[in-house]
């Protein structure tokens, strides 16, 4: 549905995107991650047909942004971090205006239907200037959906929303995935990406540093384990020292001491570690595998990209 092919974009001497390639399939949410200036927004704007690429191409629904930008725009819904609404217009008129720009049949009925879908039907005739931040963002989403696009480009859509509203928004985005939309979610919120993205594209200095499934990236890296026990940590460290695991002490939790270690061979090492601890009379309570968050994986990818 979205096929980014060797995409590059330069602004004068500045290279914003450098030979980036990735795909987003229908019914898939792909999170576009990266530090500030990595080229996320530039990529999003090029895919949406707002900005022309310097090199490479993007196919949206089989249409090239180079030769069919107008038709590409007609297939994309675009949401930015700022709702950017015409404050003097009532919601009904505003959505009707954009529905007409997108050649929607029966634009007034579409405006009402979208307002209902997003729970805004009781404020249809209220001016947008009087809306709260959360309501504004809902309006921006309604605007992006006005022509029922197969592709959605969401650029930091949950910025500045309260947690409850952000959760509602996430649920709505997931419901759009169920309706076979191809969704590219540009975000700095790694927790949000971990919750809803199927795959992740990490950009660094305009280049694709890593592409992978969210679970796949989280499960990458060295497996790590935590051992919780009663008593002081010195005896535990001394017991583990012969195994050369590089164990470290973590702050105590619930009155229990904890040490953490990494190993590539848990099937062999973990029983030996446990035996060593028990032999040293360390009162072990739990041994648990650490679950790597997307943030851990992301930081590791960036560290690797920085060399």
């Amino acid at each position: 549905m979205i096929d980014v092919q060797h995409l590059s974009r330069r602004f004068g001497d500045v290279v914003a995107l450098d030979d980036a390639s990735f795909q987003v399939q229908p019914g898939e949410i792909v999170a576009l991650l990266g530090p500030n200036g990595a080229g996320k927004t530039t990529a999003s704007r090029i895919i949406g047909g707002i900005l022309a690429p310097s090199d490479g191409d993007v196919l949206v629904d089989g249409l090239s942004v180079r030769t069919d930008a107008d038709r590409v725009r007609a297939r994309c819904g675009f949401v930015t971090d700022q709702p950017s609404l015409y404050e003097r217009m009532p919601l009904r008129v505003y959505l009707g205006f954009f529905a007409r720009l997108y050649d929607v049949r029966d634009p007034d009925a579409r405006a009402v239907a979208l307002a209902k879908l997003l729970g805004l039907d009781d404020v249809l005739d209220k001016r947008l200037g009087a809306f709260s931040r959360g309501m504004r963002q809902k309006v921006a989403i309604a605007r992006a959906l006005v022509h029922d696009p197969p592709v959605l480009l969401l650029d930091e859509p949950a910025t500045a929303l309260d947690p409850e509203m952000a959760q509602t928004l996430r649920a709505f985005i997931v419901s759009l995935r169920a309706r076979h939309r191809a969704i590219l979610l540009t975000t700095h919120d790694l927790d949000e990406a971990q919750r809803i993205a199927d795959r992740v594209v990490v950009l660094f200095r305009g280049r694709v540093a890593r592409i992978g499934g969210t679970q796949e990236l989280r499960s990458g890296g060295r497996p790590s384990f935590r051992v919780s026990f009663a008593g002081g940590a010195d005896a535990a460290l001394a017991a583990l020292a012969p195994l050369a695991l590089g164990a470290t002490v973590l702050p105590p939790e619930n009155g229990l001491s904890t040490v953490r270690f990494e190993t590539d061979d848990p099937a062999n090492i973990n029983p030996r570690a446990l035996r060593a601890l028990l032999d040293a009379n360390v009162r072990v309570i739990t041994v648990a595998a650490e679950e790597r968050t997307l943030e851990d994986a992301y930081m590791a990818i960036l560290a690797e990209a920085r060399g």
Partner: protein
Amino acid sequence: MKWWLIAWREIRWEVFLDRASLLRTAIFVLVPMLLIFSNRSIGPGGAGDIAIIGLALQSVLFPSLGGVALIAATFTAEKENGTIVPLLAAPIRDFDIVLGKLVGMVIPVMVSCAVTLTAAYVLAGFRYGAERVAHVLTPELLFALLVLSLLYVVTTGSIAMIVAARVRSSRAAQQIAGLVIALSIALFATLGFVASQVAGGWPLLALGLVLLAFDVAALEVARRVWQRGEVIGRI
């Protein structure tokens, strides 16, 4: 006809509901009225007739000047607020956005020009005699003045939009509009002097041709220069 959707939105929801622009327009409409009230020294004969034509010219010039500021301010305000982004993301040609914005500003300005010219005509009739004013300000001349003001607004509006698309703030746009207005005043003052030296409608015709040429050139430049990438890159 998507440009007309944009134009009508500007007229209905921005110009008519923007108190600042209404106040500014009202001032530009009232100034020519005050000039007619305060001008007592128009004597009989050709010089007096030229002065009446000059007053009529001012009554379309002043609202037109207000229009230039309006166009520059509106466009940069859209960039500052980010409201231009959803427009750029829509399946509309770049030129339709330019045309829609321009027409959305030109129509209210032309309405205020027509209102001011009509009011000036009626007031001048009371002040200098209806028969004389009707003799000097013929329907052809009044029409020519409105056409001139239209050409002027389209030309300067196009220039203001081209530049406004490339600057980042309303303040910069207002400075540009101020520069265009100052240059326009100098141009019109020169033309007024020429008109007072040359009998007949030739100065008006010459001005019309010059503005028409500028119109075509400015719109062509706007079509070529005004591109989504340029605008989005400056937001």
